[in-house]
């Protein structure tokens, strides 16, 4: 067989049967992904969840472009990762930024149009609307109907099914209600009582005059209570006959009435129960400074976060380095066994470790408290006193974290050439001088970036805070907002969003999140420069 040129081989690779098969697979895969994505886009658009519909649409578009354009071949390999990151990392970040400028939280959980939709379903009994006494009927299909008695009008009778409402003729006032009427059977008292819960949610009669059960005895002609008026952008409450306007700015009017963003309020200042999500600008960010119940806890939490991260890094590094230095001595018997035993804390899931320590530190029953009592000391309140709680957390974090630095330092120490020590000894340097002028500087070059990484890790070390005491003991100054003395920023934000009990404030939590993000991103960029990441990515391998 004749020699085939390189070009021919390339062509064969591009147009051969295997290549066509591969191309077919790509198109088929793309079609499946597209069908799936289009279904989602359509479904979300129908739900009115536009942000998700648009996001998924854009991601799908991106994946299609990448796969169809030849010059973007390199990106094809990254497309799945990019798509996943866009949906699960980038979109949530963007959403969090958006939420941080809103009042999203308990009481303001729905968009304005969703609130209007919800309000339009509410009904009321208009004044002068007819009230009837009711008896429940049911047909064999299980449908309910009401026998209505208008007691004010000399006992006139009506019969209302799910779709119909008609007067009953030919029955004298005060007469016995029929056991069967138009195929419906009158329910006994007990049956009626049992079914009343179910029947209460139903609307009887015609659409023009809907009738519902209002109470144990009464039924009546209910009407839609809230009517949204497009041209006024307001909701008319027909029960009180007053107009509720959506409020977009918090403040007071000339009569000193308070208006709050995201509420429907009328002239008298009354507020509808459900508020809507509204843009409140920088208010969440400003409240860091302006609201005492946020400023005081936030300042303390901020400094504790820095202190906690810093002390954790310092203590774990110091202890880890100490152990690494000791383990360097070759005369120590069973060196490898020592090393393995000392890294065990690192191999245990963090949650479990913290929980075990929590048990051991328990002031009444824990083993450490018992030991302290045995030698005549009063065990400290490790969970109630702010200072001791912090000390406990730092102790536990030291236990969790030192093996990491022990391992890292062991590796870095082994890499320091021994002739440098010999040279230092010739110069008459003592062990302290050798350590200070030789070991430590050499070590910090290698371990420095990891110290920064460990700092950012602890900055967001949610697990230890949550598992140790859920941020407690609680901070009085935070008022009704949840905050604790051992909370760090991330756990404070988490508590504001999911804290339970007191109500969620997603907007405020998101604003704190953005602050955390900016700080950690800054530190990461710094670390990236330190590790000379720039060269690494620009160089060719």
């Amino acid at each position, binding site marked *: 067989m004749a020699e085939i040129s390189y070009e021919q081989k390339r062509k064969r690779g591009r147009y051969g049967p295997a290549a066509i098969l591969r191309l077919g697979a790509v198109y088929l895969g793309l079609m499946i992904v597209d069908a799936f994505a289009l279904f989602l886009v359509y479904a979300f658009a129908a739900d009115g969840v536009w942000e998700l519909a648009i996001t998924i649409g854009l991601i799908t578009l991106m994946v299609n472009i990448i796969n169809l354009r030849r010059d973007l071949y390199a990106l094809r390999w990254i497309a799945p990762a990019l798509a*996943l990151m866009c949906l699960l990392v980038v979109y949530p970040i963007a959403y969090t930024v958006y939420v941080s400028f809103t009042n999203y939280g308990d009481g303001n959980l729905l968009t304005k149009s969703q609130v209007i939709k919800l309000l339009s379903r509410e009904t009321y009994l208009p004044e002068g609307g007819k009230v009837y006494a009711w008896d429940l009927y049911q047909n064999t299909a299980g449908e309910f109907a009401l026998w209505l008695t208008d007691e004010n009008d000399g006992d006139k009778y009506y019969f209302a099914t799910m779709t119909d409402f008609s007067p009953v003729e030919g029955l004298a006032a005060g007469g016995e209600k029929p056991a069967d009427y138009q195929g419906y059977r009158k329910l006994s008292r007990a049956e009626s009582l049992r079914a009343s819960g179910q029947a209460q949610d139903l609307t009887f009669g015609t659409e023009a005059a809907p009738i519902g059960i209002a109470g144990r005895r009464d039924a009546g002609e209910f009407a839609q209570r809230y009517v949204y008026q497009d041209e006024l952008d307001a909701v008319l409450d027909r029960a009180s006959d007053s107009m509720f306007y959506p409020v977009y700015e918090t403040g007071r009017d000339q009569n000193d009435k308070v208006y709050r963003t995201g509420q429907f309020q009328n002239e008298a200042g009354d507020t509808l129960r459900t508020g809507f999500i509204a843009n409140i600008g920088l208010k969440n960010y400003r409240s860091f400074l302006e609201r005492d119940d946020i400023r005081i806890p936030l300042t303390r939490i901020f400094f504790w976060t820095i202190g906690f991260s810093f002390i954790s890094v310092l203590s774990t590094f110091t202890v880890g380095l100490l152990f690494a230095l000791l383990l360097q001595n070759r005369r120590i018997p069973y060196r490898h066994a020592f090393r393995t035993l000392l890294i065990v804390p690192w191999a245990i*899931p963090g949650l479990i470790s913290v929980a075990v320590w929590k048990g051991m530190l328990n002031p009444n029953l824990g083993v450490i408290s018992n030991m302290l009592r045995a030698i005549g000391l009063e065990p400290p309140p490790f969970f109630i006193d702010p200072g001791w709680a912090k000390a406990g957390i730092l102790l536990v974090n030291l236990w969790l974290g030192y093996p990491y630095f022990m391992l890292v330092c062991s590796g870095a120490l082994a890499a320091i050439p021994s002739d440098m020590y010999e040279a230092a000894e010739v110069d008459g340097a003592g062990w302290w001088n050798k350590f200070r002028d030789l070991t430590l500087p050499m070590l910090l070059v290698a371990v420095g970036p990891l110290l920064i990484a460990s700092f950012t890790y602890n900055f967001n070390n949610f697990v230890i805070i949550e598992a140790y005491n859920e941020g407690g003991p609680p901070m009085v100054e935070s008022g009704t907002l949840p905050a604790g003395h051992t909370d760090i920023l991330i756990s404070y934000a988490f508590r504001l*969003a999911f804290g339970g009990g007191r109500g969620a404030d997603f907007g405020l939590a998101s604003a704190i999140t953005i602050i955390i993000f900016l700080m950690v991103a800054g530190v990461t960029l710094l670390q990236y420069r330190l590790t000379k990441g720039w060269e690494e990515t620009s160089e060719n391998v």
Partner: protein
Amino acid sequence: MSRDNHEKRKHYRPAENLQLAAQILILLAAVVFALFPIVWVISAALNPSQSMSSQTVIPPLPETRTIVAEAPGKLLRIVSLAGARVERSAEMILLVEIEGEEKELRAPKNGYVDNIRVAVGETFQSGDALYDIRSSYLINVDTLLNTERKPFLRWMFNSVVIASVSSIIVVLITAFSAYSFSRFRFAGRRNLLVLILLVQVFPNLLSMVAIFLMLQQIGQHIPFFGLNTAGGLILVYVGGAMGINIWLMKGFFDSVPRDIDESAMVDGANHWQVYWRLIFPLVRPVLVVVGILSFVGIYNEFVLARVLLRDKDSWTLMVGLWQFISATFGQDWGVFAAGAVIGALPSLIIYLSLQDQIVGGLTQGAVKG
């Protein structure tokens, strides 16, 4: 710092020996600090008494105690049958009649009920043996595995499934991306890499509100990926693990010389073939380590799982264990300890057996602790 590889220095000065002794002492103290909590929790797991206060370092030997009647009476009913597990002391064992009054005989300690020696309706005298209660090292494990309210095995199964599926997907997808970043030169490559790194800094714990709402919405149309499902949680884990692992893997791919694939390209191979036939086999050991590490990371994760999984049956192991750390922590201590020991085993085994590889990977960027 000592350099004792000089074979000729066989004799050490007394000061050096003293120093060595001090060093060994410090290390021994360090080992006590490191291992005491672990010894303590293992001992708690084996201790037949479940409460925290009555725990000792060495659990008491299992024993069988015979319960003797204190007064003559008549057995009315056997409440806990023979072989039954008594989880909390003071659980009722027998209902008896003493001096014409009904009286409940309760277990004095945890254990298994055995050898009930009196039949229902029979009378007994003061000093007669009524039944045995037998303690066992494994009673906490038995309770842990056989309590319907807290389906521990189910949680463990969920954890293993979620962690393995996620880590396999993560490794496959990120390996493709890393290959591209390592082997192709395209416009925006560097910026994309930095962007991935920065975006990764945003912990997905923080965007939990958005993730929660998104899964809720998705779940209304594709229940498989909704809230409360393993599918949804896997999706979130996979999405969150992309960035750091792309960086990690790119480093590994970079360490494979490009000459190898370039010569294959000259022979007419395309990228697909180079990837699967040449590069993939070379980096496979590293990929396995990365996969195992992300398995452990996901297995240990509990914050996202706790927010996204609401149903007891869909919980992961860590969410389940979290439930023990509640008001009754002191009483459930023994059972929690058993769960902690069993739950920590996979992570412990993997970390200790892979310690050297992990250190290699750590210095390249992945951080734990």
